[in-house]
């Protein structure tokens, strides 16, 4: 439990520290160090949970179980590797005059603010606090989206703010309804705590809970980029600085999905009806197919990969919607491999666009000839995210397909079709970017590709063989979410 307080305190310290002196030259290293220490603390936390089972803090404010602990580790890990990448990247942006010292300070301070909000969403035992932290994550990142102060960036940030703010307000209404249902039960105390709610799940009024779930799904779904509430996502990802795109795609989307799944566990326990499942499956499938088609019509490289994120979120929502042990296991695995792969891709994309001086895909050419590490990194990342064996995304997509075939055989067809369409959409753009001749005057830049290498190696490892402790972990979480054991 100390570890939880420690990472929250560390992030809080980071906000204040960077707000005061965030423009010094060594600040990127300090950011990396802070995130690195947090990562170590979360590993320690994970080991404790693995050994002793679910932890609940004494004042019942924090709950760590097998479902959220692995997301906490993942959050800290991606936060750490992205900060490794962000140090030279932001220094470069500062050097070419896109950012001044004041905005650099804002950037580092809000990076920690975002991490704090993410940790709080995951660790809190109170679903109201979870909402507050989720809104806090929007507030922390909204000024980062408009960091470059171009008209496009301001438009993107405004859209992000309004759409996510209104969306998340729906989730608060859902929370109010849920709380209303909970206070109806006699003798209930602290009725917004997950632990209390799960205990009394079967006594909650099913009608109210179904209604609440609709609001919660729309609310957190907006943050997740579910179609038709996804419009903010490509804009915010493409106009903000690249490290921000990496953490938004790799972490924020996952945490919003986490909130939805937590609520679904509760609603399923109360209604014993598949309404929540059908809602998630429908939205998931719609999101998946729409985003796969929209991939074909993109011209900006960061927008391309944001649509790919939307597509994958759709697939995960669909998987958790199917429910059952296999689909849930696949969903958990997909969350992990997607966030590892996607943040690696955004890191390479960031380098590629710094190299070419633009984000327009028409003008980025010949990456392998200019700087092979970036070119190959992008190519391998794209291969991985498109779901090729032997990478982990293949394994999880395959499991989703298996689960679909088992429960809803006729849905396998649109799923396969969507995977094919998405694959074509990615490769028609990426192939000329990595191959092809190098434009005149394009010179290699100083790049830090360790994060990419580590992420892709992990994804490859997860694709070849899931280590037994991780498999145990996932199956414990599966048991918690779906109520069935897989392994």
């Amino acid at each position, binding site marked *: 439990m100390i570890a939880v307080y420690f990472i929250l305190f560390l992030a809080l310290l980071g906000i204040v520290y960077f707000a005061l002196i965030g423009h010094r030259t060594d600040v990127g290293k300090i950011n990396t160090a802070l995130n690195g220490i947090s990562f170590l603390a979360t590993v320690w936390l994970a080991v404790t949970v693995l050994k002793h089972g679910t932890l609940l803090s004494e004042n019942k404010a924090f709950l760590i179980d097998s479902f959220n602990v692995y997301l906490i580790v993942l959050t800290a890990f991606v936060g750490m590797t992205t900060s490794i990448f962000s140090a030279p990247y932001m220094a470069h942006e500062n050097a070419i005059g896109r950012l001044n010292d004041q905005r650099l300070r804002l950037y580092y301070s809000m990076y920690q603010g975002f991490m704090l909000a993410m940790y709080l969403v995951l660790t809190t035992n*109170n679903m*109201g606090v979870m909402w507050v932290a989720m809104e806090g994550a929007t507030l922390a990142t*909204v000024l980062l989206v408009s960091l470059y102060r171009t*008209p496009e960036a301001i438009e993107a940030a405004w859209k992000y703010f309004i759409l996510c*703010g209104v969306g998340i307000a729906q989730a608060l209404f859902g929370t109010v309804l849920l709380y209303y249902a909970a206070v109806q039960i006699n003798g209930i105390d602290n009725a917004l705590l997950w632990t209390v709610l799960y205990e009394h799940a079967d006594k909650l009024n099913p009608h*109210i809970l179904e209604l609440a779930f609709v609001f919660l799904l729309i609310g957190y779904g907006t943050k997740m980029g579910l179609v038709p509430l996804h419009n903010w996502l490509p804009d915010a990802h493409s106009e903000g600085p690249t490290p921000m795109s990496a953490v938004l795609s790799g972490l924020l989307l996952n945490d919003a999905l986490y909130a939805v799944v937590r609520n679904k566990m509760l609603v399923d326990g109360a209604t014993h009806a598949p309404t929540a499942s059908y809602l998630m499956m429908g939205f998931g499938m719609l999101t998946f197919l729409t985003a796969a088609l929209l991939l074909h019509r993109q011209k900006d490289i960061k927008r391309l990969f944001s649509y790919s994120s939307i597509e994958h979120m759709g697939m995960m929502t669909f998987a958790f919607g199917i429910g059952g042990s296999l689909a849930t296991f696949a969903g958990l695995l997909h969350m992990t491999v997607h966030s590892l792969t996607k943040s690696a891709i955004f890191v390479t994309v960031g380098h590629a666009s710094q190299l070419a001086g633009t984000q327009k895909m028409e003008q980025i050419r010949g990456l392998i000839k200019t700087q092979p590490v970036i070119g190959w990194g992008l190519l391998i990342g794209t291969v991985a995210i498109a779901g090729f064996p032997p990478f982990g995304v293949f394994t999880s997509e395959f499991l989703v397909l298996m689960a679909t075939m088992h429960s809803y055989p006729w849905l396998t067809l649109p799923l396969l079709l969507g995977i094919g369409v998405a694959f074509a959409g990615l490769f028609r753009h990426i192939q000329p970017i990595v191959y092809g001749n190098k434009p005149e005057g394009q010179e290699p830049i100083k790049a830090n590709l360790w994060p990419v290498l580590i992420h892709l190696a992990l994804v490859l490892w997860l694709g070849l063989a899931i280590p037994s402790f991780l498999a145990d972990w996932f199956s414990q979480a599966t048991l918690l979410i779906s109520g069935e054991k897989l392994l």
Partner: protein
Amino acid sequence: MNAQHLDFYMQTILSMAALVAFTSFLMLGQGRLLRLIFVFAIQGLLLTLTTGLAAYSLDNPHLYISAVLTLLLKVLFIPAMLRREVLKMAMHRDVEALKNKTLIMLSGASLMIFSYYILHPIVQTSNAVMINALAVGLSVVLLGMLLMISHRQAIAHVVGFMSIENGLFFAAIVATHGMPMVVELGVAFDVLVAAILFGIFFLHIRTSIDSLDVDLMNRLHEVEK
């Protein structure tokens, strides 16, 4: 439901619900920004009174804190900030010509009926005052969205956004006697930060497009041309 048989608190809550819904409709049809902000402040005041009343009748002291927070944020700070913005941009004489005003008002009415319709299952768990409160809360949320859709000025969008918060708050106060203290403080903090961020945004939007008309923000598209 027979209103004579309800106690004083319940009767007042019902009137407050009606008044809050009424202010939402007033905002919906308002083309002048200063009046819009004024009506928004009135809605905040109604909310403060409701919270204060709930705190007094239910003998729940932590609701007094929420009442004070609402008063400071929704009645004083945010309206004052928006008003300053309007005067600075010299927009106080502009009247926004709303397209299809009749249609907007009718859609507002339909949204209210819709809220009652979807919340109907709740009747079986509670008394008729609760369903009124929750339905008014939800319709204020939906009317806030409609306000954002129908108005073009960024300031009207902020008013819509904050009025959505008002609707949620009203539902929470009446139906559940307020959320736990830590959640309420958190929400108030978020609203405060959001209001400050909106202020910063106005500055950025003004310097980038020299206007607060959101229709001018149209550079980013779903499918790129």
